[in-house]
């Protein structure tokens, strides 16, 4: 089983990121589970979401304590707290354009910069997922594109296009 934990703030699309990632994994042939955890819903508050994928079914649920991947959508979060439970093999992908005060190696890309340029607002979730599929090869960029189309739906064709453009840029620019 591969587990992913996503950290961000209310309004950045933390829950949606998990849903899109799970949908993309499903399209790549996995069984999936996604889940988001929040308290009283409000913008700016820390939000966490989770994705589990496995080709043979998933036999657990709830909080992911020891994730294989940690995705951080906001570098102003208390990182030491959000990197809890990391294993030696855990990979981090952080949305940032600066050097972070953490001791672990991490992949990074300025998803916010790209999202602001493409969407005109700081919703870096889908952009950063573009970076993720670069790191996690079993899910392709095509799977991600299709998943964005399904999850954002026909209601937002413009947003879908812009987000896919942003995701492709992050795919190209992510540094590990």
């Amino acid at each position, binding site marked *: 089983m591969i587990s992913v934990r996503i950290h961000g703030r209310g309004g950045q699309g933390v829950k949606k990121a998990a849903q899109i990632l799970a949908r993309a994994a499903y399209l790549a042939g996995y069984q999936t589970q996604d889940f988001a955890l929040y308290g009283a819903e409000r913008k700016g508050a820390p939000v966490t979401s989770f994705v589990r994928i496995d080709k043979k079914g998933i036999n*657990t649920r709830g909080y992911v304590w020891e994730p294989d991947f940690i995705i951080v959508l906001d570098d102003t979060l208390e990182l030491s707290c959000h990197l809890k439970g990391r294993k030696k093999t855990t990979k981090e992908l952080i949305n940032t354009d600066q050097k972070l005060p953490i001791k672990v190696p991490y992949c990074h890309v300025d998803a916010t910069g790209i999202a602001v340029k493409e969407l005109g607002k700081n919703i870096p979730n889908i952009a950063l997922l573009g970076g993720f599929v670069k790191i996690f090869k079993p899910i392709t960029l095509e799977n991600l594109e299709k998943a964005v189309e399904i999850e954002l739906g026909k209601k937002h064709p413009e947003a879908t296009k812009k987000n896919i453009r942003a995701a492709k840029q992050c795919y190209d620019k992510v540094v590990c």
Partner: protein
Amino acid sequence: MIDILDGNQCAAWGARRAKAQCVPCFPITPTTEIIETIAAWKAKNEFKGEFVQLESEHSAASACFGASLTGARVFTATSSQGLLLMHELLPIISGCRTPMVMTTVSRCLSAPIGLWPDHNDTLAMRDAGWIMFICETNQEVLDSVIMGYKISENNKILLPVIVNMDGFVHSYTRTEVDIPEQKLVNSFLPHPKREIRLDVKKPMTLGIPAMGLDYMKFRAQLHRAMMDSFDVIDKVQKEWAKLTKRKYDFVEEYKMKGAKAAIVMIGANTTIARAAVDEMRKKGKKVGLLRIRLFRPFPEKQIRKALEKVKNIAVIDQNICPGMGGILYPEIKMALSGTKKTISNYIQGLGGNFISEKDYIAILNDAIKNKKEERKWQM
């Protein structure tokens, strides 16, 4: 049709496929998404039933009662304090033998205010005369809502049904779900004409006063209908299994073969406990798990049979009856009365307090060793 849905959307799909004719409701976290989903369908005319948002859960339950009395197929959903506000109506709905299905999405009770799940809200309804299914998976929620109508509307039963799931860890967890075709549900679930219903052309009184012995006879009938529902539930579940290959039972055994110790529990966290059982089985420890799916009527016989050869039992209660302990514990003890087993009680997960596989492994390791019955809190 396979789609990725969360528990709430599954409940809504159940109501849609069952062609619920009236959905009176009042939103509350973590149920709101069920109502939102149905409202969005209604706006697009994809849902044909009446959709009514009332000013409170009490009014919503009253509207459900009235609508069902006219013979309509009724659906609603609520959680926590909302369910408690409905409570006044619940024994009236069952007492008047009014069929309907309600999804309850478990959330802990105030005070203090919490949003995350435990079972004190739904288990508080255990004496209300409703048939109660407590689900573990999204598919099970969808299937149980559809099966619920078939059980509820059976002319020998005529009892309302609760289909419960946990808030957040279940209601907001998405997995792949098979949405059965409308045609299949239509053939499985015809809408039987109700003999006793409100009709302006044939006026009648329902919910009459009945004192002493008369009252007791009504309650005896209600109890008998509940006990008779075992057979009906069994038949309905078997019929559904034939159509969909998805088997449901009153209780669900997991790796119980040769088990010396077992966890007994309800709800979504069962999925986490399964992972713990897998882990321990890999190490050669003979442990298993029993999930109670049908909570009312209480499947005493099946529980007794499933636990026949198990020596040490850990009953998990994600609820607290202050001054007594876990709610499930005494019920399991009753089902096993007269047997020589060590039955311990573990209170955990109140207010959605996080639980991991490690916690269940600790409980099982503890239970295996228990010589005396323990009653513990796991925090």
